[in-house]
């Protein structure tokens, strides 16, 4: 019990307390960069009534889903390869995958500006190959650029989560399926997928939540179509000075994430994938 005290204290201080403060703020009355009583639902009403919030929430969900789907789709084969095909090079490959996480978040975003910009690496390469006459303008400052940058940022996390998911699946299990006549698709569908469904869901939710709530990437590579709800939350706190509205919008986002998590848990249960064990 005592051993759990530091973790419990950390969770209480760094997670429960901030959320509790947000909850209280979300029900207070907004002043300019300040709050006062009485308690009210005004901030929630304003957050839900705002057409702007609805547009940005839709942007966030679409970009978050796309980033999560792409990340998991790319991470699955990498994690599989890492688990079963890298042999003694596994640690080196793992290091290379995690190395990109050592670079600063902003540096990685600016790297994509350099790659996708009008005079960036991609356009220059295409032009020098004679494939295009003029730079492709649609590569940057839109939803596509935000998704590419977010997938790049969160892909290593998805690979690590899925690699951990593959770890308990012994190669012998796949060999047994093969001996019983299962082809590669059948092995994936009937053996691997049920076993990695739960870790894949974790990776998906991890990337989705972080992508959908991001507020830095959309500002640097997003353009108007890439603006997300996180940017509005930030603006409520810094520019507008409406703390209750910022808190209420954040909590509504959190509620949406929790709802999505529960829905996916129910989906796993209905598909009977939540109780699959390795032995």
């Amino acid at each position, binding site marked *: 019990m005592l051993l759990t005290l530091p973790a419990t204290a950390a969770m209480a201080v760094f997670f429960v307390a901030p959320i509790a403060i947000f909850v209280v703020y979300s029900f207070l009355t907004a002043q300019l960069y300040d709050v006062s009583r009485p308690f009210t639902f005004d901030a929630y009403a304003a957050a839900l009534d705002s057409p702007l919030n609805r547009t940005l929430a839709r*942007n966030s969900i679409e970009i978050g889903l796309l980033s999560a789907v792409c990340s998991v789709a790319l991470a699955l084969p990498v994690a599989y390869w890492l688990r079963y095909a890298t042999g003694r090079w596994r640690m080196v490959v793992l290091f290379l995958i995690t190395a990109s996480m050592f670079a600063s978040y902003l540096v990685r975003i600016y790297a994509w500006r350099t790659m996708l910009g009008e005079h960036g690496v991609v356009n220059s390469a295409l032009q020098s190959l004679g494939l295009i006459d003029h730079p492709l303008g649609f590569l940057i400052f839109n939803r596509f650029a935000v998704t590419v940058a977010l997938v790049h940022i969160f892909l290593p996390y998805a690979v690590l989560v899925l690699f951990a998911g593959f770890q308990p699946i012994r190669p012998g299990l796949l060999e047994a399926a093969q001996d019983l006549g299962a082809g590669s698709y059948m092995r994936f569908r009937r053996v691997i997928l049920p076993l990695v469904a739960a870790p894949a869901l974790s990776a998906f939710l991890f990337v989705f939540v972080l992508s959908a709530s991001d507020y830095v990437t959309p500002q640097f590579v997003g353009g108007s179509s890439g603006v997300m709800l996180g940017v509005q939350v930030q603006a409520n706190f*810094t*520019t507008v000075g409406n703390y209750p509205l910022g808190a209420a919008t954040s909590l509504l986002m959190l509620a949406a994430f929790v709802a999505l998590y529960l829905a996916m848990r129910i989906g796993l249960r209905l598909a009977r994938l939540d109780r699959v064990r390795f032995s």
Partner: protein
Amino acid sequence: MSESTYESALSRRRLLQGAGAVVASVGVSPWLAETAPAFGAERKIGGTIDFLSWQGYDSPKSLSPWLKSNGVKLKPTYIATHDDIQAKILALHGGKGYDIITYYQGYKQLYDQLKILTPLDETKLPNLKGMLPFFKSDYRGFWVKNGVRTAVPMYWGALGLVYDSKALPTAPTSYDILFTKAMKGKVTVDDDPVGAYTLAGHALKINVATMTPAQFATVTAYLKKLVKQSKGVAPSYGDCAKRIADGDAVIGWPGWAAQVGFAADSGNKNVRFVLPKEGGYAYCDSWAIPISCDNPDATYGYINNAISPKVNAAAAIEQILGGVTVAGAVKHLDKQTRSLYDYKNLNNFFAKAPLYANPPVKSSTFITIDKVIAKWQEIKAS
């Protein structure tokens, strides 16, 4: 006593000791804070100045010699938008942290209401005497109001357009260029709600500080059209300059002369600033000491040094296209910087590029600042 019970009791004791130490330190700290001024009289200039302002306003070449000679360290925090200033200071909830800020004249009313400025002690700023009459005055209460000074004008100039002279060899003469077909997707707009409404209002001959709802709708329509011409809003003036420097945009709006330097730092020396025929709006960013200041002696020294003639001139040159605020500084300017403004008749310049106040914080007649900011968020995502 079993081992586990013993450990548990020990931990509880330690926990209580720890809690006691925390309570004691919290209880003593207000006393320490109250006694601090007693040491202040004997204290020499030193320590760290926590600087909260735009990148470049710390004018490293001009202002650091004083820091070095006085053993003062400057810890800069650069802002992305002006609103970062009040947000960061208010986030301290009355605590200490930032020693010096600059504020754009339009924010004076808001900052008065938020009570984040301290009245300045003019006896600690002897160089104030040498300021140009315009900046020494209580012009519209921006720096001195009801006899109380809260700011010392330092950096000023105008906002208009910045452009890449390689892509646009002829300097734009009107804001109309922003709406041409050729500029579709070539415009970059700064994420500065007040700046955007002020400049758009100026182009439409509407004063942002006294906007009626009908005028507000007109300016909003102008801005929506402008943002549609762009590839989105850049999160800061620095990022806006980088977009031009990288070739992702050709024109930046509102354009700030300092962006010429930012673009040069990013490797593009072709970026230029221009004030089109419609003029622009002037800014005057002034030093101020916020309520979060805990090193006032060094901060007063820093400000006083900045308005000494030679340093003031050097800082204006360093800013690129900057103006001076000190009369004796004019003679120290290089020929190019001196030719930018007619110091004998600054009123002419401020007629073409007026110093506007921001929209009011509260008003039943005019559009208030919160509405301007909220609408800007909508425009950005439109």
